[in-house]
């Protein structure tokens, strides 16, 4: 059973978003990291670039598979998680504590449209 914290919002592409003031933290869910297996590399976007919602923004690679990450909400990259550079498997350890990147100047409207924990959980059930 995968972990789905209730204070986050989710996408069907298995990303999560957490708001902290005027910043939005983005990462991948427990389901995603489990399906990927041991993560060996993360390609993160350049700081300062703006991305629309659903635009491909990053890449997460494991031994067996690669996953493109689609930006859940429009915004500008404020920071990327540099710890992932040497230790990409931090995501496997805790995919919610280890975000991928942080957005600023994001569209709140996009955030409202995301799935809540329950809806994401329901969605995961349909994948089994």
């Amino acid at each position, binding site marked *: 059973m995968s972990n789905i914290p209730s204070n986050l919002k989710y996408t069907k*592409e*298995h990303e999560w978003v957490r708001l902290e003031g005027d910043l939005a933290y983005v990462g991948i869910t427990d389901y*995603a990291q489990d*399906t*990927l297996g041991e993560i060996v*590399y993360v*390609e993160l976007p350049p700081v300062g*670039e703006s991305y629309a919602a659903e635009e*491909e923004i990053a*890449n997460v*690679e*494991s*031994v*067996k*598979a*690669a*996953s*493109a990450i689609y930006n859940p909400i429009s915004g500008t990259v404020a920071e990327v998680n540099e710890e992932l550079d040497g230790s990409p498997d931090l995501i496997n350890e805790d995919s919610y504590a280890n975000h991928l990147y942080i957005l600023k100047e994001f569209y709140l409207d996009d955030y409202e449209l995301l799935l809540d924990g329950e809806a994401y959980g329901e969605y995961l059930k349909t994948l089994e």
Partner: protein
Amino acid sequence: MTPYIPHTAHEREQMLKAIGVASIEELFSSIPKELHLKGELPIAAGLSEEEVFQHLKELANLNQRKVSFLGMGSYERIIPAAVQSIASLPAFVTAYTPYQGEISQGLLQAIFEYQSMICNLTSLDVANASLYDGHTAASEAAIIMLASKRKSTTILVSETLHPFTLEVLKTWAFGTETIIKIIPEKERTFSTDDIEEYLTGEVAGLIVQSPNRYGFIEDYTGLAEKVHANNALLTISSDPLSLVFQKSQGEWGGDIAIGDTQPLGLVSAFGGPSCGYIAVSEALMRKIPGRVVGETVDRDGERAFVLTLQAREQHIKRGRATSNICSNQALAALTTAIYIALVGEAGMVEVANQSYDKAHYLANKLQTIEGVELNNSAPFWCEFPLTFTSPEVLEKALKALSKAGIFGGVRLYPLTHREEDKATMVVAVTEKRTIKELNLYYETVKGVVA
């Protein structure tokens, strides 16, 4: 008896019993009756090995072999006997892709060695285990370039690329959002002079080829800088044998190197199989398509090799792959590596020099004939374009050469469909040609044209 199927009637019986069915037909019961083929396949009955061999030998004999001056992407070169011997070892030939590393260490190491050789020849950092051929490699390079620049849509290509490479790129781009923009040639070569005009925001990169399709060596001085200034990438396609002779792609500042390894140990084979190579700079490592062999260790700390960076082949959201290339040309890449191992740099340099000298010997003699032109004084390696006063004279020359037992050259017009190419052919001279053959060529053409 059916060839290659070992079962006896008795064994079939035992097996059917173990399965729990009365007859073979029951095994196909899940196929609806209407879909069962009525009668037999509409092809001939099977033949014995001897009959098949004799028939195919007859067909082979219908194909003519002459002294060849044909090039344009496929070259007749001297291939050491040991190449075929080694490349025919059953454990290599009858193996599948080495997904299970422990049982395939030999093959994996051989491919790792091939990758290393390609890196050294191209002066770039990462090579893959091969692509289908040098022409499709261009579309793989385009994919990398587009993926490396946000919102880019356009790939610039020099008109001097092999005509079939241009065709393959066109086909690949059709129906997608990618635009292939051709930069016209200048006197049958690529000029860096006006390149800035073409380097706009939507341009992801440029593909050039040297030696180009006419055989000319192109000068890329300053090109990489200009391309990079536009935040784009540079792909250079080169005959890999030429890389011991001319400046390599990495030395030019190129980001991606592609080409076809047929000249390194592979027979012409009517065009296939061949082997495409691709090498990239370190920064592009994770974007390289297809299979890559990497070094690692096993449980006991012993050096081992394994297919790695396999993420390219499979995605969680599998429709997102930008390249679908799954396999490579392993045995052809292996053959190339064997050739390089046998002849070494010294051998490759010798071959490259001989080809150069022989081609220039012939070209110089031919140019003394009035009505025979080379079009350009640009440097060339072992291939050059020859233009006659009219298409009729070209045909007369080719006919006379054919009669003398020579395939004189490849007609350009059928490949490019350009008016200015109607009286031109491209002539390739490799180390395999002798001075006797070169002189005969010259005498024959002189006899026709003069």
